[in-house]
């Protein structure tokens, strides 16, 4: 085993409570960090879901020719503001109506396909295009009228829902960022204090090492390795705790949100998400440890 790693491990064993304090604080930081990362991902997914669901329905005039309809469909598909264009025939419209009124069969018995207009449904890549697109659709000869999906949770339009979700997402990101920042700052300070205490504890050793010709890198290495070890342990435990918690809550989360993909459905995508979070946190943990230990070492050197 590497000499510095051995020295760092023996230092960790010698003062287990300092080590535990550092690991505990870092674990909390990265537990919260991972949880917020998942929350930010989920809120983005919810936002994206509402932003991209079918939003505009262009009801077509009776007697519109197939060629004209296909031509309009192609035109819409080529528009970068528009996604997922779908033609809904009169029969399909009746079927949708029947599904929607399945609890009252009498209502569906009274209607025939002829009363439902065929339509072209599509969603928008960004809701800010809604007004322009609806205006353009209304000017099309084939189009009788244009509907914009609305009403969810009492809001007047889908745009209201999305704008509310955007606000929520923004506050989650902001709040999460501030909270994670405060925790990172706390971890940095705790790490620095513990490394400073280690330096005080190793004062004699450092003095001897300097006298026998040890380079500053040799003296600093075990301290930096120790800080990196604390950080990596904190990252891994914090991340693992969040992973276990999310896995435990996943069935409930999925059933509660239904079709909204708040978590990746595929196991590979789910673990890829956590893998990306872990990688980012390892990088952050190493930077935190290097920053904290170097600052502590520089302060110790200045005090001499």
């Amino acid at each position: 085993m590497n000499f510095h790693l051995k020295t760092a491990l023996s230092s960790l064993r010698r003062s287990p409570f300092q080590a535990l304090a550092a690991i505990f604080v870092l674990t909390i930081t990265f537990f919260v960090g991972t949880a917020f990362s998942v929350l930010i991902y989920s809120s983005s997914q919810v936002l994206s879901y509402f932003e991209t669901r079918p939003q505009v329905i262009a009801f077509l005039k009776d007697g519109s020719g197939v060629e004209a309809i296909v031509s309009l469909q192609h035109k819409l598909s080529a528009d970068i503001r528009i996604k997922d264009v779908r033609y809904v025939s009169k029969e399909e419209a009746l079927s949708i109506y029947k599904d929607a009124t399945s609890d009252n069969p009498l209502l569906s018995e009274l209607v025939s396909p002829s009363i439902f207009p065929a339509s072209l449904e599509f969603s928008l890549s960004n809701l800010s295009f809604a007004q322009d697109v609806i205006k353009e659709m209304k000017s099309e000869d084939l189009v009788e009228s244009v509907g914009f999906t609305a009403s969810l949770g009492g809001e007047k339009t889908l745009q209201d829902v999305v704008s509310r979700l955007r606000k929520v997402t923004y506050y989650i990101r902001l709040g999460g960022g501030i909270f994670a920042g405060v925790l990172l700052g706390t971890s940095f300070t705790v790490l620095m204090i513990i490394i400073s205490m280690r330096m005080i504890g190793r004062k004699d050793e450092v003095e001897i090492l300097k006298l026998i010709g040890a380079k500053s890198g040799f003296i600093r290495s075990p301290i930096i390795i120790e800080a990196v070890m604390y950080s990596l342990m904190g990252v891994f435990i914090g991340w693992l705790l969040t992973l276990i918690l999310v896995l435990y809550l996943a069935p409930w989360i999925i059933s509660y949100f239904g079709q909204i993909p708040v978590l990746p459905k595929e196991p590979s995508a789910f673990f890829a998400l956590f893998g990306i979070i872990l990688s980012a946190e390892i990088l952050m943990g190493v930077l935190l440890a290097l920053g904290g230990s170097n600052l502590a070492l520089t302060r110790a050197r200045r005090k001499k």
Partner: protein
Amino acid sequence: MIRFKNITKTFGSVVALKDISFEIEKGEFVFITGPSGSGKTTILKLILKEILPDSGKISFGTQDIEKISDKELPLYRRKIGCVFQDFKVLPEKTVRENIQIALAAIGVPEDKWEKRIDEVLKASGIEKRADFFPSQLSGGELQRVSFARALAVKPELILADEPTGNLDWDTAEEMMDLFEKISKEGITVIMATHNSWIIDKMKKREIRLKEGKVVKG
């Protein structure tokens, strides 16, 4: 090998060394003697470049000590082994580990450690205590550990600051035999001491200090 030329060193208003000059040849065994506060330890610290003189010039071979940069300092110190009155061994490491750390610090490859450790432990007469912790050793044994560590780095010069100060006469005599032995192998030894019995017994060159001045040597 070591040359002090017109060295003056003060600590605030206290004059530790006052315009002293002397030379020590390679392989020489020299005592630096004098009462407490006469400047013995200051000389050793100046050689190690722990402190700098106020004026004058110190040379180690062809090297001007003052011109050694912070980056070069560890390499310079690797030429010097130190033995201290208070041993300065690491209490949480075994005898073997105390020597290992010195070898690791100067960059000796790990596969060469064991051979070198065995050699110096044998030369210092503590091979049977290799896996003991300092708390399990006597004063004389601790001084031997300090000696073995100094020797492990294959120094050109050994600086010993009152190495017998904490030892009884018999043990002190054994330690002096060890110093004598390495001196005969060509290693320069500079020993600060006020133990007149040892100075008389060893019959080596003596640089005697009094109030920061060389009065003999």
